[in-house]
């Protein structure tokens, strides 16, 4: 799978997550007045929203690596992380919205056209941060968390604006919030993939076999390569590949490749290595699999 396909998939997941979250959010919003306080309301709504977005985004790694068990486990882990992240994000986003709405835009006159959209966009930006972090927390990767924070915030702000302005421009249309959710999901996905690429250390492209053409983005400090589905780079169905065969490590500015054990041979440009700083265009042989390290 190319980087473009990968980007399209995460954007699709974002859109689907937005669509799925919309009806759930509408039901909770409808019953706002039965909640005892804004605190409980924010936590419940944020948790439900984060749960759905987290489940969709959590399945991303499994889908792109074509490892089915990882789709389910990723979705569950993502949903649970999203549940907590969504609650925290909504709480903080709501706090920011109240603060921005009350402090910065106390003027009644400009409130609807400027104050409310800006305040809401800021709130959504914070919500986006926590939703975007889901994949990073699921993967236990600080780098991915950083990517999620940036991608989520950048994606959340236009989502908030879209919601507010579509509501202002088309007050009769009930789908304004759905549009906002879709844009939020799409932009979180898009900016996540964009930021991920910018912060990535390159791409490993599989050159042969059943995963031929698949590209693995190197966007976290440690990646395991092997047959097991738990690995970030899973080479199931390749001959002579151990469960965990090799490890990729980011050390300073170097990307180091080393075998996971003495019995697992790893060749770079035909030479057997013990630890090797990768350069672009290096050809890696792990079992019967060939991988090509490139910038993009």
């Amino acid at each position, binding site marked *: 799978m190319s980087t473009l396909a990968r980007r399209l998939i995460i954007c699709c997941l974002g859109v689907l997550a937005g669509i799925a979250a919309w009806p759930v959010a509408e039901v909770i*919003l409808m019953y706002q007045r039965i909640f005892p306080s*804004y605190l409980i309301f924010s936590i419940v709504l944020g948790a439900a929203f984060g749960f759905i977005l987290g489940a969709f985004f959590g399945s991303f790694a499994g889908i792109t690596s074509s490892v089915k068990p990882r789709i389910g486990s990723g979705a569950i882990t993502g949903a649970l992380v999203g549940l907590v992240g969504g609650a925290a994000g909504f709480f903080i986003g709501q706090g920011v919205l109240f603060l921005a709405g009350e402090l910065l835009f106390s003027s009644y006159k400009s409130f609807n056209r400027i104050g409310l959209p800006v305040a809401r966009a800021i709130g959504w930006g914070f919500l986006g941060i926590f939703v975007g972090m889901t994949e990073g927390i699921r993967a236990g990767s600080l780098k991915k968390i950083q990517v999620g924070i940036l991608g989520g915030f950048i994606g959340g702000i236009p989502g908030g604006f879209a*919601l507010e302005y579509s509501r202002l421009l088309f007050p009769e249309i009930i789908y304004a919030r759905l549009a906002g959710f879709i844009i939020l999901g799409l932009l979180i996905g898009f900016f996540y993939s964009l930021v991920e690429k910018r912060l990535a250390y390159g791409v490993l492209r599989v*050159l042969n076999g059943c995963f031929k053409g698949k590209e693995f983005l190197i966007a976290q400090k440690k990646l395991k390569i092997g047959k097991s589905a738990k690995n970030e780079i899973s080479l199931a169905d390749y001959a002579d590949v151990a469960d965990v065969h090799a490890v990729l490590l980011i050390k300073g500015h170097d990307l180091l490749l080393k075998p996971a054990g003495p019995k697992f041979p790893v060749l770079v440009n035909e030479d057997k290595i013990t630890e090797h700083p990768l350069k672009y265009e290096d050809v890696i042989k792990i079992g019967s699999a060939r991988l090509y390290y490139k910038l993009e």
Partner: protein
Amino acid sequence: MSLRKILPLLSGLILLTPLIPADNISISQIDSSSLLTSQAIKLYLSVTDSRGSPIEGLTAEMFRVFESADGLNFKEVPGIEGFKTGANIAAGINFLLLLDNSGSMYDTIGGKPTSVQKDMRITHARQATLSFVDSITNPRDSLGLASFNTNYSIHTPPGSKLAKTALLLDEIVKPTKEEAYTELYASLLLAAEQMSGIKGRRVIIVLSDGENFPYFLHTQREHKNFKERIFQHTEPIELCQKEGISVFAVNFGREKDRYLETIALETGGTVFDASNEEQLSEVYQRIRNRILTEHLLTYRATMDPADIQYVKVEYSRDNKKESVTRFYFSSTIFGLPLESLSFLLVIPFLIALVLWWLLTKLRLEKIARRPTLEVLHVEQGSPSTKLFNIRSKKTVISGSEEADLTIAGAPKMKENRATVIFDKKSKSYTVVGEREITVNNKSVKTRKLEPGDVINVGGTTIVFDDKPPR
């Protein structure tokens, strides 16, 4: 006491009732900072008598609080959680001095035309303004300066540092005949609009010597900004009440606008008859004292969905009721709910799930079913095809059009070529370079190929692949 005796007394009381001046209540600030964490709203209330003096001895029982999502239908909140008198607010006061600069301000205090600068009302007003600036002791206070006649002019925007205001008094110059009208209500409205963007205590002090005297009404010519609009005194009152801005009026002459007192009292301010600098310098202290005697009322907010929640405080004393309405920001991140729910909402949820399931079934990888050469990267030029299926015994890669896989426009490819040869006996492929080529970054002349081998010929990177290894 007989009914015959009581009736005249009662009717007398009824007749007298409208004559008893009403108290004034205003909300000077709404603090909703605890809304998210504890659902509490704090209201800073100012209750004054008809002369603008704070009323003492108030209790929580005298107040009722209502909330409304639309500003029309109010419902009473369950209860008041706290009531404190003398709430000491550390925040400063944002003043906007609105100075009358109409033609009459260039007469004497007694209303006679004069050409002597020091006798003019405007000179006294300027000096009084400087005295006012000097009397401000709180460094957190801010001061803006505006003037009005036919037009409203802002000299120092509200929220500015104090020193700047004093200097900009020189900007106020004698108006022409066309500019000499008194657009008092319009100017108060514009001043309130300007103050509405500022946070905290907001006070407009208007120094005027006469009545509202609109340009259009008295000339029947269109005003350059207001056109034919005649402003009513209720307009600045409404905005000030909505925004919690108090208007304090200072009369600087013998004539007085008939609604100026109403404007001041209904916005929680008062009217001063000041004709000299000393009297005006007392104004600051009186406003400050007013704020120090404010009441803090805390209640638990309702959860009715609204972008802005209207809050009405009803105050009753001696069978008289007064109320004031303001609003606070109560919007949630996702905004207001739909008018009604429909089971059709389930459809997008299901669609999203189905599409997600289909996405998980997607396989974008291409497994090689036959030997191929895939162009991965071209340093210069363009290949005739990105993926070439090897069908013949010999496959030539070069810059020539006669080659099987042509890399056109690549000068290095013209000097170099590689041939992939199939050996029927061993059922294997070998690459042979005319000059030096690399396979897996190793320089070679000839090399037996394995699936996934990377060949570089003249800057073009090509991947050889065959059936997947097992």
